[in-house]
């Protein structure tokens, strides 16, 4: 009887100690779910979802405070991926937040630009080069197309230009299926 108790006690201490050690040793920094959600979000940092960036939106989704259909740049594809990851039901994009658009980058009309730096402050990803009273320009490969620089511009010299397909980025289309016509009776 006593031996059995001692054995159980010993085991309890041993397992408890190892669990305690493991919880310290393999402690996960941050929330892995937030990271996973953040990896799906497009990182435009546009704030169309109502949160100040993709990470805060990811945190809100993880905490159940936000819906998964609030990200227009992520589009339908993004919502499907989030639904798969979180085991939630797919919902069409929330139209209040915006519409899915083809990828575009900002373009500054350099003749009109007065060098006010307001767009520099608005750009969430530092994709605009320039300084006070100097002409500004978009570093196109870095631009995420968030459109946050358009509103602050006092002379309206920023426009969005859709990214054109090039030979290097061109994709083969999905091979279409040829549907065999089947003789069916017409209605009427």
């Amino acid at each position: 009887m006593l031996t059995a108790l001692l054995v159980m006690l010993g085991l309890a201490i041993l397992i408890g100690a190892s669990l305690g050690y493991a919880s310290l040793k393999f402690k996960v920094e941050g929330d892995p779910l937030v990271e996973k959600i953040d990896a799906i979000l497009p990182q435009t940092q546009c704030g169309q979802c109502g949160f100040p960036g993709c990470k805060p939106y990811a945190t809100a989704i993880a905490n159940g405070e936000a819906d998964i259909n609030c990200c227009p740049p992520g589009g339908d594809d993004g919502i499907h991926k989030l639904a798969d990851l979180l085991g939630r039901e797919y919902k069409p994009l929330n139209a209040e937040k915006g519409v899915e658009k083809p990828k575009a980058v900002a373009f500054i009309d350099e003749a009109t630009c007065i060098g006010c730096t307001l767009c520099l402050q608005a750009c969430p990803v530092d994709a605009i080069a320039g300084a006070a009273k100097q002409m500004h320009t978009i570093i196109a490969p870095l631009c995420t197309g968030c459109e946050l620089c358009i509103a602050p511009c006092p002379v309206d010299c920023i426009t969005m230009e859709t990214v054109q397909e090039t030979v290097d980025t061109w994709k083969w289309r999905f091979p279409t299926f040829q549907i065999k016509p089947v003789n069916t009776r017409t209605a009427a």
Partner: protein
Amino acid sequence: MNAALRKLFSFNGGVKPQTHKAESTRTPIVPLPLPPVFVVPLHQSVGGTPIPLVKPGQKVLKGERIGAADGNYSAAIHAPTSGTVVAVEPRTMAHTSGLSMLSVVIEPDGDDQWLATEKFPFQSAAPDEVRDYLRDAGIVGLGGAVFPSHMKLKPGKATPMKTLVINGAECEPFITCDDMLMRERPAEILRGICIMRELLQAEEAVVGIEDNKPEAIASMQTAAATMPYVQVVAVPTRYPAGGAKQLIRVLTGIEVPHGQRSTDYGVQCFNVGTAYAIHEAIELGRPLISRIVTVAGHVDTPRNYEVRFGTPMDFLVQQAGLKTGCDGFVMGGPMMGFRMPAFDVPVVKATNCVIAATPALFPPPPPEMPCIRCGECARACPTDLQPFEMYWHSRAKNFGKAQEYSLFDCIECGCCAYVCPSNIPLVDYYRFAKTEIWARERQMEAADSARQRFEARNERIEREKREKAEKLAARAAATRATAQADAGSAPSADGADDAKKALIAAAIERAKAQKPATAEAPAVADASTQD
């Protein structure tokens, strides 16, 4: 070693389509006359797009560099003839997409005058200089992959180079450009092989030629008779024996595993056309401005032409006598070729063959039927993949799974689609999946870099705010301390009031001190404008 004694190996799979090669080998290679206009696309090889060096209105000589290699992973572009640059603008590329790319449009002056060319001092130059020279001469792989050759002409770091494999197999139906080149110019090819062998420090060079080209084999063997380290070997005719990995396997027995390069095993592979181009560049100082192109299909006299890059394809095909009823051009062969978006697209470095297509020659594909998992495609696959699995996952857009089945080891040879009893265009699915995966990777990289920059920016803003606050606090503390010191032993009851007064006094002092400075500044500015 006698070539006849060399042990040959074989690769799995492969098919034997009708070759259609006899038609275009009856007549020798002829140089193509000058077309009315050349459209030379700047991006003709794998790697960076060359930077244009010419402006509209500028006169250029034949062989003059018009596009400089962008970095080392690129190759230069040269003027195909002497003339005037009419425009540097986007023109339709010889690419299925029908997209345009920056091209140099040259109007020939008819003189066809070479830029002063001289032999490159190959023996006295350092290997790196030779490689840079080849890059600036625009030498790329002419087998179809158009990979910059100078990048491949480096001996492996770990393994010494043993065998230099020269690809003269030319397994694809209709194409005979390498065949004719080997028949007519074997000595030049062999000189190119010697240069490559020296650069790679390879022990031996082996030329593999499919045994359906006895004339080419005989011609190469005669020319190589005096070279003990070059062997000309006939390999069995089976498509795709001309694939680099397949030919290496046939000639050396080495199977290059997934994710590794043949240089890791002491083998490197080049096309015979590339060897010829290297000879032209080094010994004659002529950059790569032309190549042999087979014209076949719906024409009066299928034959091979020496065509300069930038020649419109319709001009080329008309020389061979284009018959009526052609509904498009196919660049490359019927197995791996691409249908061109227009008739006037230019001949580029990758153009080994132009087939004038007709609905009779290339009938529309029969309706695609469901995969019955018969496994024919797996038996035909020369890279030992499982095409039906890759097809299944590509079709379901399950790209991760498709990659697990080594989608990127697929060489798109088309054997699987050729044997498929359900007429499934398998290669189209692989191409779709590959480009889709690349697009997603690009998107992922862009998102990662945007995330990093966003986080860095937030950190910077936080840090600046903190530093500003700290600075302000420090300054306030300093003024308070001086004010208290000034007030000295003031009664403690009025201490707070005094400190406040002292702060205000200090602020006034500072403003006064700043005033003369600002008053002076405009004066200085005025003085400078008067000067």
